[in-house]
């Protein structure tokens, strides 16, 4: 095994991430306006932007989901307990002792177990809460009727709001995590140019050099 700088976030993945980030920030800003937390823009503008951006994000998610399953990248998000404790111990103790981050990215495991669990949680719990409740709300607003569901049920709004607040918490921690270790820029760069240090097996290294020469850089510091 040896460390190499390789392409871990392909162009689509980076595009997905930043479009999603932009969309979520926009949706939070307009969503909080619709909720009545601030009045920086008019209600009308907020609703228009919120609805349009949400529709766009749903399309993006459709592509992303398709991509995750057809490329096999879903494997990065599979929950595992292997090594989880070491990560938890590092963030709550080791980090204050000057220890190095215990996790080495692997070719098919680019996220540490805690990170993977957090992203999976966002993907399978918070996001569906948002879009399912959002679509039901839209469906009801757009004139759909279910027996006994004539009004906008407050429960739908409740779930939507709850998910939004959960997403704010995720964002806070997500951003803070970037400052840990080698620093903010170091952590953000891979999501811009796609390259990060990964512990490769001999076979993986040989495969990349033979079949994806553009995805591996020699100046690895491992």
């Amino acid at each position: 095994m040896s460390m190499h700088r390789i392409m871990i976030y392909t162009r689509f993945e980076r595009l997905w991430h930043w479009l999603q980030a932009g969309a979520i920030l926009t949706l939070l800003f307009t969503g909080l306006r619709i909720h009545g937390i601030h009045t920086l823009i008019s209600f009308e503008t907020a609703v228009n932007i919120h609805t349009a951006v949400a529709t766009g994000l749903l399309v993006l998610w459709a592509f992303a989901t398709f991509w995750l399953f057809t490329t096999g990248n879903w494997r990065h998000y599979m929950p595992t307990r292997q090594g989880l404790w070491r990560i938890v111990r590092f963030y709550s103790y080791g980090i204050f002792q000057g220890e190095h981050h215990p996790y080495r990215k692997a070719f098919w495991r680019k996220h540490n177990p805690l990170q993977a669990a957090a992203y999976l949680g966002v993907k399978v719990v918070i996001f569906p809460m948002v879009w399912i409740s959002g679509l039901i709300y839209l469906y009801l607003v757009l004139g759909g009727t279910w027996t006994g569901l004539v009004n906008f049920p407050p429960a739908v709004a409740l779930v939507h709001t709850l998910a939004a607040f959960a997403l704010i918490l995720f964002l806070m921690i997500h951003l803070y995590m970037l400052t840990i270790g080698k620093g903010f820029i170091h952590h953000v760069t891979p999501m811009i140019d796609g390259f990060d240090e990964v512990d490769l097996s001999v076979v993986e290294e040989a495969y990349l050099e033979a079949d994806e020469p553009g995805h591996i850089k020699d100046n690895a510091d491992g």
Partner: protein
Amino acid sequence: MKRYVQLLQILLLLSCFAGTITWAAYGYSEEKTAHPISTTADHSQFKVLQKDFKTGPEVTEACLSCHNQAGKQIMKNIHWTWSYHNKKTGQLLGKEHLINNFCSNARGNEGMCAQCHISYGAKNFKLPKTQDKIDCLVCHDTTGSYYRLPPTKGSPACSILFAGKKPIDWKQVAQNVGMPGRANCGSCHFYGGGGDNVKHGDLSSIMANPPKSVDVHMSPDGQNFACTACHMTRNHLWSGSRYQLLAKDTKGVGKPGFRRMATSCESCHGLTPHPKGSVKHLMLNTHVKRVACQSCHIPAFARGGVATRTFWDWRTAGRTKNGKGFMEEDYTQGNGEKRETYWSIKGNFKNGENVVPYYAWFNGETIYTTVDTHFDPTKPVDINHLEGSSEDSASRIWPFKRMETWLQYDKKYNNLVYTHLWGNDDESFWGNFNLTKAVARGMKDANLPFSGQVGFIKTYSYWPTTHMVAPKENALACMECHSASGRLDGIGGIYLASHDRFPWLDKTAWIAIALTALAILIHMLMRLFAGARRRQS
């Protein structure tokens, strides 16, 4: 390639021209007309109208000699019957039965109130029943010189009502009949409740020729609609009665060739009235399901300079100065005219202009408090209780003028009463100023029990706000309702974004956010602190 482009341009130009020419050739003009039907007869040439008529009934006889079904038709109309049987609620409604919270009751006061009954020769407790007494002219006069006076004289104290009117030139009026215009309907409907715009709030004398800012449909600068453009007629019966209102039209414009007897916005504008093509319009069209068009498109009523009466207090009626009734006019309305704030025969008033409507769920049905309804006198009484709720899919949020009145009632039997206002006798309130006597007579004449005790109760009546549709740029902005405190405060039954939230959820969320921020801060400080210590050692 270039040649094809040129050819295409020429073709395009030609087709535009052709379109314009066809348009012009078929005479499609945007001419605004008050009446969809133009006339094929000049009434001044008819022999039967070449007489020197002396009275109204003589004119009516001439009218009916040609329009031989009109009499039978009009006698089925509520304007003639003054009675309406609501088959759904079983209630007997109409002016001959109801008590309102303005001048209280037409029944028993027909000698005055039947000034607005389409007949000649009414007396108290007696509306004419025969065709020859129909007044055709009040609706069909186009000269503007025709007028009606109260059918009987009443108390000598009311003689002022009959002063200084030019005699009617019956021949001139009879020869100039036509379809009813706004002023015809308005001669009664603008003055309901005893004065200009007193009753409805959205029907004032301004509506005879309203500026576009007051009513886009009826303004001569707008569509120039007559009332009958929306209140569709068939056989002298017309649609759009308040007694059973179409609160939610689910049919829309109907198929070509089908005449819909529906007085709804949707019957012209369709079920998705806002132009499609943007998120905004999509969102607005969704409101149609739960919000009446009028709620957003009539931002306020009593616009244009004429006030409406918003509050009436019968408790103070009957005060006199030197034994005589008097009037105070301490309200100056938008057009500069003074309006009553006190009148001995009626009590104290409040007037209002540009009034924000009262909003309520409404399915078109109302339950009236009639003279035989016994109520709980500790609570305000709804003269017409609005039916509907958010759970009822036939209901929408409607705007209303809510009239508040302290009205006389039978303090012992807890019911509303008929008051004998009009008459040349010593019991009529308008002249004698004794309410107990007037109520006793009103109830006796109607063969109803009266305890002898008159009390006053707070009443509300609700008048659907549906005229005075503003230009679209003056429609309500979202924030009028979608804000912490807005027009729909207390409407209930819906989750209104920006207005409604879950306080516990918001509170929990903010605490969670604060705790997370705190945890991050502590973690960061510990990192810095530990790092500094390591560097030291």
